[in-house]
């Protein structure tokens, strides 16, 4: 399917599915860190490859990215991206330390971030699965801390044999007082969008 040919109704449906998934993910994150986490209404965009990193603060912005590969009948990539200072703050919250304690990401901090990505993705996919009756299997999380463009290139390469655009379903999470933000991206592979839309009766 050409992303560019999605109808407004299909876009709305995808946004709504994303909304429920992200809502559950925000609740899970909030329970993990013991604080209120807000989320915005998910943005659905069909974005040219060269503009994807603009959604992550710019090509050379230093970010932490947790990548999870989704396999099964509807393969996709999930990427949780957050600016480095937000990543450090989130680790502090998770470990019950005063915000500002973590300044570098070591082995323990890496595990914490991977686990956060894992739980966000798992919650998100469970909601998606409930709507669509599609079973998603998720890989173990992998983490990279580097320039935004370098991180997203890996994910975009997986959909690059079909076109030059990625469908981004983006939800921004914010820790109310802590100035922490991160975005969760769902990037469906070829065929996945049709399956999701078909299961919603909108193919």
């Amino acid at each position, binding site marked *: 399917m050409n992303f560019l040919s999605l109808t407004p109704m299909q876009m709305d449906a995808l946004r709504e599915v994303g909304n429920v998934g992200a809502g559950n993910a925000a609740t899970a994150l909030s329970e993990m860190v013991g604080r209120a986490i807000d989320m915005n209404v998910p943005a659905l965009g069909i974005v040219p490859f060269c503009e994807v990193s603009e959604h992550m603060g710019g090509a050379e912005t230093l970010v932490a990215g947790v990548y999870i590969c989704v396999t099964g009948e509807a393969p996709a990539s999930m990427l949780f991206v957050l600016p480095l200072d937000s990543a450090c703050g989130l680790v502090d919250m998770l470990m019950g330390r005063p915000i500002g304690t973590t300044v570098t990401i070591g082995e323990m901090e890496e595990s914490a971030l991977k686990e956060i990505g894992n739980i966000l993705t798992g919650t998100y996919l469970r909601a998606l699965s409930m709507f669509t009756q599609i079973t998603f299997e998720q890989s*173990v999380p992998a983490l990279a801390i580097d320039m935004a463009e370098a991180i997203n290139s890996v994910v975009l390469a*997986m959909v690059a*044999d079909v*076109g030059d655009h990625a469908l981004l379903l983006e939800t921004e999470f914010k820790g109310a007082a802590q100035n922490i933000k991160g975005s969760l991206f769902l990037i469906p592979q070829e065929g996945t969008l049709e399956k999701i839309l078909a299961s919603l009766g909108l193919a």
Partner: protein
Amino acid sequence: MLVKVGMADLKTAKAPANLMTAGLGSCIGICLFDPVAKIGGLAHIMLPLSTQARSSDNKAKFADTAIPVLVDDMIKLGASKSRIVAKIAGGAQMFAFPGTSDVMRIGDRNAESVVNGLKKMNIPLLARETGGNFGRTIELNTTTGMLHIRTVDRGEKVV
């Protein structure tokens, strides 16, 4: 002046305009240079082979199709094919998974395909900064032919 090249794109420039591309991960920056005409070309490729793709309309996206197009564009600008030399950077493996799949080895496969493509066109490869698990931002100086490589925490390098 700095000419920016985005992902899956290619551009040429004549000195003193330099060429740059930011945040190469598994992608590869192919830098071609004619030292006499002082003309450079930079392609930011994402995938090794157009023949394996569903859609190969964008020639700049693939190692095998980007090189000939880049050479043609440089010749149009006044470069001579026999003088063109190459430097490449990128092709990292950003994420490490246990039991790494073929998809995750995309950086290596890109590098192999670029090297083969250059060989096929008899373009000497003067410098190769590929692999690792970190991103690179590169800038080709079209006056000197030097390639500047920046990383987040592995310093800078000029090749």
